[in-house]
């Protein structure tokens, strides 16, 4: 969709001006990220230099510290972030596909209201759920556990997943499924073996967005974890407050938080753009 057509907006604007504007836009977009990643590779003296240093010998000390055992190890936090993001992505895809299939392939009383309820839960500020949810998960002993976070992220992502998957499944002709069901396949098998493979771009988009939502979350991880299930964004925010912390350490932590979503979004651009435009999400 993005790649196909050229809209002829003001035709008199020369290619040169367009090129300059594009360069400015890309510079504005990339400079902060590049600066942060660059800082993670600079020694203290280079960071504190009053004239910005652009070319230098990369210094990997901070990254090495993170992975070696000891006080500055971030392995636990990294594992927490990765496992909660991956698990909530998997659960969200299963629940979202089931719900989307139900909404797409059946007509039933209350359907419209339930779809709108789902949309509403996506649009309302999740902060308003924080305290009662905290008391609830506390009574279930799920505070500071990965299971608690996975439950929360699944809840936050499922409405978007359902809406996006429904849009994709709506676009798949029902005849494929009918043919399989005449051959005796069950609804669940049809969903898993015929519908979902055909809706693969939707699954990819939902997977990327859910992973990024969980990986990037600060608010819930901040409130619902303390030590055991603490994720990377929380670690990052708490490290900022430590005395004597170097910008190199902070920038390296930030880089580790920044990189996976960027890699994922570049790898899955096509599905992602379709998903974002169709699902209008966060």
């Amino acid at each position: 969709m993005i790649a196909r057509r050229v809209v002829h907006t003001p035709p008199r604007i020369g290619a040169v001006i367009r090129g300059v504007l594009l360069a400015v836009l890309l510079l504005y977009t990339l400079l902060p990220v590049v600066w942060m990643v660059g800082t993670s590779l600079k020694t203290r003296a280079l960071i504190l230099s009053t004239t910005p240093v652009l070319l230098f010998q990369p210094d990997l000390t901070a990254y090495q510290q993170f992975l070696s055992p000891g006080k500055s190890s971030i392995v636990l936090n990294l594992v927490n972030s990765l496992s909660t993001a991956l698990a909530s992505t998997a659960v969200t895809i299963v629940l979202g596909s089931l719900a989307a299939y139900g909404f797409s392939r059946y007509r039933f009383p209350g359907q419209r209201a339930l779809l709108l309820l789902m949309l509403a839960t996506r649009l309302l500020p999740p902060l308003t759920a924080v305290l009662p949810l905290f008391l609830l998960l506390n009574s279930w002993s799920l505070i500071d556990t990965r299971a608690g976070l996975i439950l929360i992220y699944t809840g936050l992502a499922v409405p978007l997943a359902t809406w996006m998957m429904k849009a994709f499944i709506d676009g798949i002709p029902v005849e494929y499924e009918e043919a399989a069901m005449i051959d005796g396949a069950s609804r669940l098998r049809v969903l898993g073996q015929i519908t979902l493979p055909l809706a693969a771009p939707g699954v990819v988009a939902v997977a990327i967005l859910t992973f990024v939502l969980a990986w990037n979350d600060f608010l819930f991880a901040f409130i619902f974890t303390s030590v055991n299930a603490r994720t990377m964004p929380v670690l990052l925010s708490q490290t900022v407050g430590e005395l004597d912390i170097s910008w190199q350490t902070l920038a390296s932590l930030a880089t580790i938080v920044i990189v996976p979503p960027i890699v994922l979004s570049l790898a899955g651009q096509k599905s992602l753009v379709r998903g974002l435009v169709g699902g209008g999400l966060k």
Partner: protein
Amino acid sequence: MQAVERARVSSLPRVRRARRVPLAPYAFIAPAFAVLAIVLIYPMLQNIYLSLHTWSFATPDKISFVGLDNYLRLTTDPIFSEAFVFTMLFAATTIAAELAIGLGGALLLASIGRLRFLATSIVLLPYMIASIAVGLTWRLLWTSGFGLINYLLLAVGIRPPAWLADQPAVFFAVIIPEIWHSTPFVTLILLAGLLSQPLDVYEAARVDGANAWQSFRSITLPLLRPALAVALLFETIYKLRVFDLVYILTNGGPGTQTQPLGLLVYRRYFLYTDGGSTAAISVVLLVLGLLTSVFYIRVVYRQEPAT
């Protein structure tokens, strides 16, 4: 994009060819709603209930009904007013800037040929980054002494303020990172809107002698209205939630001058004892979100073609 929105909505009332099994659809949607009920629906309703009572986080069981007292007290609460005004100002300024920059970016991206896909995916990047990391990145850029922004300002002879401490500089230090972070979403929605516009209208306008500005004013903008509405309303909803970015940039400071409602709710819930009035604040947020959502849903439904 309109096409996608329309497909989503208009597929609701159409009867699908499905077996008449009354319980099956509910079984398909039940697991998703079970999780939603636990994580969002029950807590939000419970929050409304709590806002009508006096209680505290330390002793959530000691609770007594006080009707609308908590809401009435908010009207004379200076910290609440300050946070409310800040949140509204933050939303208004960031959204205005994002729509302007986003529209410019979308027009630019729509006008380039070969490089468009690559450029679009680069422009989208800030949107994928965790807001906590965005906040820290800009904290580094705003730093005095060795910060990049101050260096650039000094290079052109401007004496920079203490970005994270002085008014009004701190307001800009908070909104600029948010604009940088969220504009890509607006750009993408508007770009999709631009690319779905019919080309023959522009052709006809050119034949009739319209110049570039005229065809932008009377063709591009009107056709872009639904996309602009969607971007505007989604951005409003996101701005009401602002928390991470401000938390790491200023922590609401200096004093409480950059404290959004979200940060106020967090602080009061977990650091103070007045649970009832805090619940009331978050219900105010809920109502603002609900009003925006209803507006959004109505705009999307209005796009539905008369069938």
